[in-house]
């Protein structure tokens, strides 16, 4: 009996969440909510940018991460941000360009302004597209990113060879465009052949399995493009497991520590780094600028890339773009 009661008491204690520290904000500054797409190094670096800007500008910011890439997880967090009633701006990476329109419209109706980072709503054209309510879309030009990967491989392989793409989900705006840009670049070279593009649903294990199967099917495969963190990790794994490190070029999108290790080991030959820190920092500055009445904010800000190879990975000017989360 005593044991049971003790157990209950312990359980009850565990259920009392820890009260957070609240940071006092000045009255004439906006309060901002940051809602990334999922927990991963890319968004964690973006949060570093957000927090740096918050410190520099004296703005208070609250952050919530969904633990999976899914509208049913991101939407309740968004709704709760709106219900708090104290947020003026929400910086969000929408996990679906169609399904997140209605929930974000509700936030706008409640008087909150939206900035999308990394991913976008509708077609990303906030002037003439189907969705025009966000203040701005700050993120990589993903078509361009895919083209960089394709051009690099075409040049390295001398315009000849079979290539393969590891993609995530069909509906995700950014990765779709990376795949598309890559294919455009490859198609410009008649000697290059795309043997396939598989979708791993953002799971590195699935990416490994799929890539391993393609390595079996296509013994002459020359290169693989992994469109994001998990795709590149999976592709790199499979190439390593097959003992083909160095023989099959892997181009990785996103400069995670793992991708950089693989680059040093020779499994990955090119890492295309986005600039999530810039995205976070700029989004905060945009919010403050809008708060101050600035009306000429650009609706689209491509943040550009850093291209990392084994030759320049130790150059501090390049190495600072590696996604490092303290």
């Amino acid at each position: 009996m005593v044991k049971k009661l003790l157990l209950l008491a312990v359980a009850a204690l565990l259920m009392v969440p820890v009260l957070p520290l609240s940071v006092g904000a000045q009255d004439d500054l906006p309060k901002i909510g940051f809602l990334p797409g999922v927990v991963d190094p890319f968004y964690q670096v973006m949060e570093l940018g957000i927090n740096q800007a918050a410190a520099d500008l004296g703005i208070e910011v609250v952050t919530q991460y969904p633990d999976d890439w899914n509208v049913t997880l991101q939407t309740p967090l968004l709704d709760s941000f709106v219900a708090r009633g104290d947020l003026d701006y929400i910086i969000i990476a929408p996990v679906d360009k169609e399904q997140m329109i209605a929930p974000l419209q509700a936030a706008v109706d409640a008087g909150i302004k939206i900035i999308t980072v990394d991913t976008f709503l509708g077609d990303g054209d906030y002037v003439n597209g189907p969705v025009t309510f966000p203040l701005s879309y700050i993120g990589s030009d993903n078509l361009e990113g895919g083209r960089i990967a394709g051009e690099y491989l075409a040049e390295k392989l001398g315009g000849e060879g079979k290539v393969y793409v590891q993609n995530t989900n069909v509906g995700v705006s950014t990765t779709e465009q990376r795949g598309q840009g890559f294919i455009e670049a490859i198609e410009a070279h008649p000697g290059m052949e795309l043997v396939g593009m598989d979708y791993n649903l953002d799971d590195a294990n699935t990416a490994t399995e799929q890539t391993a199967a393609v390595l079996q099917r296509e013994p002459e495969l020359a290169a693989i493009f992994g469109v994001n963190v998990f795709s590149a990790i999976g592709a790199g794994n499979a190439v390593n497991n097959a003992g083909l490190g160095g023989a099959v070029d892997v181009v990785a999108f996103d400069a995670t520590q793992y991708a950089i290790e693989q680059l040093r080991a020779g499994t990955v030959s090119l890492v295309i780094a986005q600039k999530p820190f810039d995205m976070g920092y700029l989004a905060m500055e945009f919010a403050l600028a809008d708060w101050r009445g600035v009306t000429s904010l650009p609706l689209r800000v491509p943040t550009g890339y850093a291209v990392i190879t084994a030759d320049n990975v130790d150059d501090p000017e390049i190495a600072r773009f590696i996604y490092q989360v303290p």
Partner: protein
Amino acid sequence: MALDAKAERLTQPEVAGGARRSNTQQAILLLSRVWSWVFLVMLLVYFSAAGTGFFSLRNSQNILVASVPIILMGLGQTFVIISGGIDLSVGWVMGLASVVSALIMRDVIPDQPVEVQVPLAFVAGLGVAGLAGLINGLITAKLHVPPFIVTLGVSFVARGAAWVLAEGNVVAGQPPQLRSLGNESLFYVVRGDEGGFYFNLGALRGISDEVCTVLNGHLCRPELSGAALRGLDRVFTWPVVITFVVLLVLAFVLRRTQFGRYTYAIGGNREAALRAGVPVDRHIIMLYILSAMTAGLAGVLHTARFSGGAADSGDALMFTAIAAVVMGGVSLFGGAGRVAGTLVGALILAVLETGLVMINVQTFYKYIVVGIIVVVAVLMDQARDLITGRAETVA
């Protein structure tokens, strides 16, 4: 009637000695019945005191909206678990129903008026879910394959079918009125100049403007735009209304009808139920159809709310829904549980989700709390069984 009485007796496995329980035993029994309600109230009080904007009309509605897929995936599940089974297919059946309903509207009957499209799409979504449930039920009841295996298998089939049909994408391009169905509400509360409480009967304007002048115009909310929209709260959105109607009906069915008594009887002791004349196989098949169809309803409501069919719409919340059922006191050993318990379980989850955001704590903590209370719920269940003597009859 005699048969009902027998089934009824099977559901009341109180054993001799009940009259001479010690005070401690009485206290544990009481606690095991009310602890989840108490915990929910504690959470509400705590978050109201500590959170920013938690105690507000808008947030109360957010909690209800967030609980919709959990409640619906848990509702049919409640019946299945009471009967001694389990349905692991609800998550992907929800996704399949979402995709099918969206495809119907976008590709199959795109030219029909929306009044035709939406009901047909809902029927198709529920129908395909019911089919999955029928397969679950048939194989479980007739071929005696454990439901854990059958529903796991059907889950994968539904998952594959949903992704194939959706071509790996979100089935967007839905009629705009669908978004209203998924996001507008039965009532509105408007603050500000034209403040007040309104019914959502604006559609009546189509019939006659006069209608909207009845009750000082409170049948139709004023047209709001821009900053005035900030003062608008949607109370009981349509998915919430639909969910709670279904919840009330099923609560009634479980407590007050032969269907409910059979469910308890089969979960209490399947052999005895069979001997008492309960059509066990047929009933089990119906239970799995019910479970799949409430999940299917969650799917079509997802399509409406997000104006798009998504194969993975139910995946993220499936085990959360099963946890809600268990937290609500439904016994995994079968034979005991109530629909109200599942509602409390779902509300605890939704309150935690929104509450943690309000106090600036990462919602990951939610899972730790849920994990602990699932285990506590089962301990409570066992303690109750020990005291009432039910454990012997089950084991």
